């Protein structure tokens, strides 16, 4: 019935398992309606900004985008919060672990599903916002920094998912990693940036500071949601992306290592 055993180190099999886990996790996100809810928010939230009548398309976009990071964080917390600890907490690991695949493949697939879910949210948000800009200001007014902004939002998505994913590998309960992840990215790190800024240290290495690129790319020193920012410093595109990519990679690798060593005892 099966095609027989595969060698112990089999990268092809590992990739295939990762893909299967990715698809399975995505199905779960769809069935649990979470993806639907977050996607609905990505449609509705930008529409709220119709209320702000601002002069230029760029300012409009920047205002609207200043809220996107909240949605990214919510999505990351929701989709990655239970990715690792949920498997132990809910004991579904008793079903998935005693199968011929590596735990790292299972977790990598779940990570990718959380990333994709978050990217879908981001894409919807930009699409809606673009339609609004076209409607309100016309095609000639589309802000020039939008591509950079989108790239920043995409990379921030992967880094936010990584941060929550790492928490999910360390903490015992899904609800803790979801909440701690949410608070870390929306409160703790922004407050830290603010403190550093007031000490005249540029918080270039803090991921949420780099995430300001999302709106700063459209309007320099634009708007940001969350605890006050004095606008003394501004992230640069290249280094900002590099910082976010570092969080992405470190969080992912750390989580997969810790998660697959986690004991079923």
């Amino acid at each position: 019935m099966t095609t027989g055993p595969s060698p112990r180190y089999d990268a092809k099999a590992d990739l295939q398992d990762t893909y299967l886990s990715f698809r399975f996790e995505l199905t779960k996100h769809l069935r649990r309606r979470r993806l639907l809810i977050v996607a609905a928010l990505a449609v509705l939230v930008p529409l709220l900004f119709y209320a702000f009548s601002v002069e230029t398309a760029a300012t409009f976009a920047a205002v609207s985008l200043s809220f996107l990071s909240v949605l990214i964080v919510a999505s990351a917390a929701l989709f990655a919060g239970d990715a690792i600890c949920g498997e132990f907490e809910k004991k579904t690991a008793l079903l998935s672990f005693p199968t011929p695949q590596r735990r790292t493949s299972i977790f990598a697939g779940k990570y990718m599903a959380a990333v994709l879910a978050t990217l879908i949210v981001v894409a919807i948000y930009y699409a809606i916002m673009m339609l609004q800009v076209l409607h309100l200001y016309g095609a000639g007014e589309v802000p020039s920094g939008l591509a950079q902004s989108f790239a920043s939002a995409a990379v921030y998505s992967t880094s936010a998912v990584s941060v929550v994913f790492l928490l999910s590998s360390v903490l015992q309960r899904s609800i803790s990693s979801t909440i701690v992840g949410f608070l870390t990215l929306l409160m703790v790190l922004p407050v830290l940036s603010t403190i550093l800024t007031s000490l005249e240290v540029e918080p270039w290495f803090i991921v949420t500071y780099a995430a300001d690129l999302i709106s700063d790319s459209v309007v320099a020193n634009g708007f940001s949601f969350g605890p006050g920012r004095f606008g003394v410093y501004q992230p640069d595109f290249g280094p900002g992306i590099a910082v976010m990519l570092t969080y992405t990679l470190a969080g992912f690798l750390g989580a997969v290592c810790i998660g697959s060593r986690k004991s079923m005892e």
Partner: protein
Amino acid sequence: MQYAIETENLTKTFRNGFTALDGVSLSIPKGHVVGYLGPNGAGKTTTIKILTTLIRPTSGTARISGIDVMTSPREALHKVGALIEVPGMYEYLTPREMLTYFGRVYRMDKAGLEHRIKEILELVKLSDWDDKKIGSFSTGMQRRLVIAKSILHGPEIVVLDEPVLGLDPKGIRDVRELIRQFQREGMTVFLSSHLLAEVSEVCDSVIFLDRGKVVSTDRIENIGNQLQSRTINVRFLRPLAQEEATRLMSVPLVEDVELIDNGSARLRFDGRPETSHSILRELLLRDFPVVYYTPEDVGLEDYYVSVMSDDRR
């Protein structure tokens, strides 16, 4: 001979210093149905978790179909399907969605997998539920679904950790029938339980585990021989008169008499069938109005207790 399941000196000491397994060696021949019996906390689940690579032993080795589970987990896990404790369920999914995922993990091809899912859901009587959310299933249905998942890929060996946990009598009978079916198909079944009666009906042999050690291994028929009753229940046509009761005490070979509401009695004897026969003849010769005469069912449980160490408690 290559065994289906083989362990050598498995030892597991948990981080808190508790030793749950203390040198467990098992050799389970292919095609056998073996009960793994022990009281709560004996180490049954710990053994099964090691066999399925969920935890690592402190020392010792475990092989599935000759494949070391520590060094070649992927190959070993292809050969075995397992139900371990009470797994969490993908409540938002349907049995079909869940089984399709695992079937793909086992690299079953699309057509074969679809056919197999149909087949096993029929086997566990969940055919009508293949597209319903698992979250709405009863305990028994969830248990049956996990059993179905454990045989999805047609493994040679199936390991079932307390498969009837939480099931009603009918559910227990269904699972028993399933296990017989697995056996007919030539699978090796390793079945843990804390009730001897539960496994004695389906198993070829039983391994007794107590406090992390194998204390006895026996074929079921041998256990049967050791279950000879030392008590006979006798029922009389009418309540015995005082004089008759006194005479009953003096029947040869009867060691002790316990009268129950004067219409029946329990006789103790040495347990030999010959003695039982002699006593019956004596009773009839002495005109006792015997209606029926049956050795008391010694429970398997008595045997179980006698095998397990006495210094418990």
